[in-house]
């Protein structure tokens, strides 16, 4: 019988791996810890590292598909030099020596003459601590990463308001929150932590409310979905504030203790001091002390400050607490729920109910932790008491031209409820909080840039007033992207989305070399893609390219590769050293600071080099300070891993905070430790410093935490960090617009600056909405959880999940427009039109259509077949999104310069013709030497001895 049906040979206890190595995932910027199982030198399995603070053992779809990323046929194999016209994709392979000589030649010329002519911009960055430092050493202010088009609105609004931010600088208290309000998040950078957190939160029965025009992903599991009209959240939040103020359901104690609510604001209209804080001669802000009935030191622990009233200062001027300004503003009927309902499409009844729920949970369900702690003034508290309302927000807020203010409004709402860094609320992730705003100013002013010189200071930072701007005497921007100019005074992350246009236009000046890293800037990170491609290839009357040189480092055959003159092929994330540094975008969680490394777990089979090694190598060739010894030899001959261990940013502070000190015994700060990387590897490639229980909340005012933070260089002093409901730097810019001070905006920007630099949050309709007559619908994108921007499409497994994208249209809207499921339609904006296939759905705001981001690919790229669905049925909305408005002004937030992707307005109509998406661009050839993709993938067969 056993011959007829022989038993199955199930091997229950196969040994999966010969070796398991830990490292850090980089299928996205969440940076989870992974364990890579290797069998016969091949990748057998990648799993989450259970000990890792970020992902605690779980992995997302992308992380689980790392094997296919590593084996992608789109991997570049050797440096490439352009042979055909730019954009044609015609290259020849060259040796590294030639590539580096070429680059050094171009760059050395620039540095000798005018370092600003190098624009160095990086995209999916994780090495900003290195690249920013390199740019300073080179001497160019024209450096930034992608934050300007990503989420600078969130970062800036947070850092100027609470000294922290959503994004990667803070997180909800997943353990204790009872009510969680989430605005405009599809996935976010903390992919796995948010998912882990939501699971916990819902498991505990807390209520989760998602404000989002689209009901998918996180919003799908929300206990309540609020399908707001895009770009109107600010109004919604301000109406909530209105309701809470009216009912007097705000945490006045919290406001007085931790915020600038009681700080006196000078009321002297028409003068240069109007709207600024009243300060004593040491510059300390003043309040009205009700105990002494006199002006008092607002920073002193001894005062009993008033929140309302009109007071007279010693100099005779009138002043009122900033809270009064706030209350006056938002108690106004202009912010009543009925008004907000008209704007947001959310009923007044719902707004009232949400306000009531927030108040109920905040004030009747307080969380008390039996953890004694000491505040900044040395006062002991027996417990930690919190109001368990948590909030989180991301690009649904930031990617609008009113995002800075909307995000500020959300932070104001949190603060009024007393939920910042309290049990159950929003929690800072070290190294945050930092003073609001952090005390780093951007370098690059006239005089700070000189031939052959390093720049004294970092290219990016936080401006506190007109005097910090990087502008010439006549107001002309100093930077190629016009960051920190009157166009975008608080452009804390630079404005990568303006670089190509400005470089092409020679505005404010022409550049020589555009050096980019890890950014698909001719495709999914471009606004107005067709025009961007044209600018990259445009020539002047002499026949020379208007952007003379483009150097680009990518690991894969992306769309952008074809636009480079010189391509520097990078390694994949499993082949190199990397550093997830506290100096950069950290992976800490609220309970402790953490950083991590990536170690090479497999050796490249191609002639590629880690970009960080290449950058340091170029630095040596250019003789950049800090990268060479006095004799000109390399300071870090071992390359990036050598730099990671030995480079010190400040004495005792380096790229990695763990196991410092010669013997590895210090945490956070200490002398370099030659064995540091080994210690990391032994620990699973990460380091975490867990905060003591009494340091975990009230970090902005927690003596013990602040002392620790100072000791490791997170903050400069142990002074409490005061939350800034009223943002004085905004008023300083506004005063300049009103004609005060030496640095004033050009006349054409005066009115705009005055309007948008309101020290209290405001709501205004996004610019595109106001001007785009005849385009009644908003068009949005969302991050698919199983795809990372453009780079997941080369992945044989992930592309099966998202090989093409649909345009999602509300069923009611579809009925109105006579559009059925599976129809093809034109999506038209003022820039042009895109053809796409429809999917009808119920869970979407009636005036909104949306699609998954970055699924559409240009034919011939990413190692895919020319007729792959990504190019035939995939599409980008980017073709329709302007980087400038119809009137030529930036399509951006006027405060930060953040790109307003989600302000796109469109109309739709049925399309006929073949079922192929449009526009189609000329198919690109595979780079020379590229592997021919296989037609049959039987990965894994060898592990079971099958062929």
């Amino acid at each position, binding site marked *: 019988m056993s011959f007829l049906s*022989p038993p199955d040979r199930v091997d229950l206890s196969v040994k999966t791996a010969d070796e398991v190595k830990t490292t850090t995932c980089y299928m996205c910027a969440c940076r989870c810890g992974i364990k890579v199982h290797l069998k016969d030198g091949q990748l057998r399995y*990648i799993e989450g590292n259970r000990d890792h603070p970020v992902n605690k053992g779980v992995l997302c779809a992308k992380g689980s598909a790392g094997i296919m990323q590593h084996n992608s046929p789109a991997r570049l194999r050797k440096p490439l030099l352009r042979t055909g016209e730019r954009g044609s994709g015609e290259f020849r392979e060259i040796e590294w020596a030639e590539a580096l000589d070429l680059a050094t030649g171009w760059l050395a010329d620039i540095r000798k003459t005018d370092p600003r002519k190098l624009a160095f911009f990086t995209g999916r960055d994780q090495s900003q601590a290195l690249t920013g430092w390199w740019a300073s050493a080179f001497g160019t202010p024209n450096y930034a990463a992608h934050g300007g088009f990503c989420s600078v609105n969130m970062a800036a609004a947070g850092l100027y308001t609470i000294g922290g931010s959503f994004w990667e600088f803070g997180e909800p208290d997943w353990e204790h929150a009872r009510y969680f309000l989430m605005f405009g998040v599809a996935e976010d950078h903390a992919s796995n932590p948010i998912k882990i957190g939501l699971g916990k939160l819902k498991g505990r029965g807390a209520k989760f409310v998602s404000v989002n025009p689209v009901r998918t992903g996180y919003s799908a599991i929300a206990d309540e979905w609020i399908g707001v009209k895009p770009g109107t959240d600010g109004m919604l939040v301000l109406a909530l504030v209105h309701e809470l103020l009216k009912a007097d*359901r705000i945490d006045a104690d919290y406001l007085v203790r931790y915020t600038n609510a009681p700080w006196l604001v000078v009321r002297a209209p028409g003068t240069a001091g109007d709207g600024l804080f009243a300060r004593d001669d040491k510059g300390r802000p003043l309040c009205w002390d009700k105990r002494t009935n006199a002006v008092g030191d607002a920073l002193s622990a001894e005062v009993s400050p008033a929140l309302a009233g009109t007071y007279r200062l010693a100099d005779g001027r009138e002043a009122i607490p900033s809270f009064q300004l706030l209350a006056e503003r938002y108690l106004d009927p202009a912010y009543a729920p009925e008004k907000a309902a008209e704007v947001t499409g959310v009923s007044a009844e719902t707004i009232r*109910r949400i306000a009531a729920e927030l*108040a109920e949970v905040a004030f009747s369900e307080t969380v008390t932790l039996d953890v004694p702690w000491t505040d900044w003034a040395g006062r002991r508290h027996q417990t930690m008491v919190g109001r368990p309302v948590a909030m989180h927000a991301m690009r649904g807020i930031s990617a609008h031209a009113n995002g800075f203010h909307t995000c500020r409004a959300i932070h104001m709402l949190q603060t009024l409820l007393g939920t910042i860094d309290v049990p159950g609320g929003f929690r800072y992730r070290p190294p945050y909080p930092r003073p609001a705003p952090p005390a780093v100013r951007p370098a690059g002013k006239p005089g700070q840039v000189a031939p052959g010189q390093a720049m004294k200071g970092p290219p990016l930072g936080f401006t506190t007033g007109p005097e910090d701007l990087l502008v010439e005497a006549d107001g002309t921007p100093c930077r190629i992207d016009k960051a920190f100019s009157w166009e975008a005074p608080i452009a804390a992350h630079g404005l990568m989305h303006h670089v190509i246009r400005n470089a092409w236009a020679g505005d404010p000046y022409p550049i020589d070399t555009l050096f980019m890293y890890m950014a698909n800037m001719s495709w999914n990170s471009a606004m107005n893609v067709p025009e961007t491609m044209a600018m990259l290839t445009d020539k002047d009357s002499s026949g020379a390219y208007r952007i003379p040189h483009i150097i680009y480092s990518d690991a894969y055959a992306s769309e952008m590769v074809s636009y480079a003159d010189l391509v520097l092929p990078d390694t994949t994330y499993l082949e190199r050293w990397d550093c997830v540094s506290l100096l950069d975008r950290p992976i800490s969680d609220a309970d402790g600071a953490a950083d991590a490394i990536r170690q090479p777990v497999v050796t490249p089979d191609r002639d590629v080099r880690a970009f960080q090694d290449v950058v340091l190598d170029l630095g040596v060739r250019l003789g950049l300070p800090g990268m060479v010894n006095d004799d000109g030899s390399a300071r870090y001959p071992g390359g990036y891993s050598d730099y990671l261990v030995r480079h010190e940013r400040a004495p005792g502070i380096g790229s990695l905070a763990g196991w410092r000190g010669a013997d590895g015994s210090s945490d956070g700060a200490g002398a370099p430790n030659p064995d540091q990387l080994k210690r990391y590897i032994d620990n699973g490639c990460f380091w975490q410093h867990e905060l003591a229980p009494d340091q975990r909340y009230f970090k902005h005012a927690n003596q013990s935490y602040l002392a620790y933070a100072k000791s490791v260089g997170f903050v400069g002093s142990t002074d409490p960090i005061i939350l800034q409901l009223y943002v004085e730097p905004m008023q300083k810019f506004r005063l300049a617009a009103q004609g005060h001070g030496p640095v004033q905006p050009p006349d054409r920007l005066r009115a705009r600056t005055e309007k948008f630099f309101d020290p209290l949050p405001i709501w205004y309709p996004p610019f595109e909405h106001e001007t785009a007559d005849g385009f009644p619908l908003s068009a949005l994108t969302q991050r698919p959880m199983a795809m990372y921007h453009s780079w997941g499409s080369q992945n044989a497994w992930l592309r099966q999940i998202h090989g093409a994208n649909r345009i999602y249209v509300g069923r009611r809207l579809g009925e109105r427009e006579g559009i059925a499921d599976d129809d093809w339609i034109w999506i038209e904006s003022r820039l042009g039109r895109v053809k796409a296939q429809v999917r009808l*759905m*119920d869970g979407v705001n009636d005036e909104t259509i949306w699609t998954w981001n970055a699924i559409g690919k240009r034919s011939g790229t990413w190692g895919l077949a020319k007729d792959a669905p990504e190019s035939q049925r995939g599409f980008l909305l980017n073709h329709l999104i302007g980087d400038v408005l119809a009137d030529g002004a930036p399509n951006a937030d006027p405060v930060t310069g953040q790109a307003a992707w989600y302000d796109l307005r469109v109309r739709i109509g049925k399309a006929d013709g073949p079922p192929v998406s449009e526009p189609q661009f000329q198919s690109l050839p595979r780079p020379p030497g590229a592997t021919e993709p296989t037609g049959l993938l039987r990965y894994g067969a060898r*592990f079971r001895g099958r062929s």
Partner: protein
Amino acid sequence: MTSLPASPGAKKLGLVIDLDICVGCHACAVNCKEWNAGGHSAPLTDLDPYGKDVDGVWFNRVHSFEAGDHDCGRTVHFPRSCLHCETPDCVTVCPTGASYKRAEDGIVLVNPDTCIGCKLCSWACPYGAREFDETDGVMKKCTLCIDRIYNETMEEVDRVPACVSTCPVSARHFGDLGDPESDVSRLVAARQGYDLMPELGYKPVNKYLPPRMPKRQAAPALMPSEEVAAKGFLAWLDRMLSR
């Protein structure tokens, strides 16, 4: 072998999937693919992996549905894999005995050495849990990660299916649904876990936990405070607050 076990054991290993918290991230599906590509049923062949008609073998696929109309409805992400049914026809229809249900734990497997690739079992599975590997000419399916759950070379905590250990929201649970006292059985009881297509009588072992419907918190409406109503912002005037 192809008949169902004459005396099935009490143990019924299976999954419990919580539709209330599944965010549809596909992590379970991809991690399943990754593990099983080199596991018991290796490989999970992909046809035309970089081309126009990409099509691969997956043991777990995540669908998305909308239930109910417009704003009153819900979007539900819905992972679908073999339910290791108690009385599945996928086993009994198999002419070769390649498809079988293990008496000791109820896991339904395919023997790749005897399967003739007639596809009948895939027709007999109402749930679409069977995947034909064209290149190997045999049927494949979720093995409940049989090469993990008993794997003595692995740490005890790792001996759960790949999809369970990787799910970021913990929407997937693994255990013995034959034991009413097990965690999974309790969960099913507490949350009214249900069967898919019970009308067909396959008696799936895997259970789904239903999405909970929108919660309206019973918060008392906010009433304007008398003070604020009367005095506006000056209501805050008289408070003695200390820093």
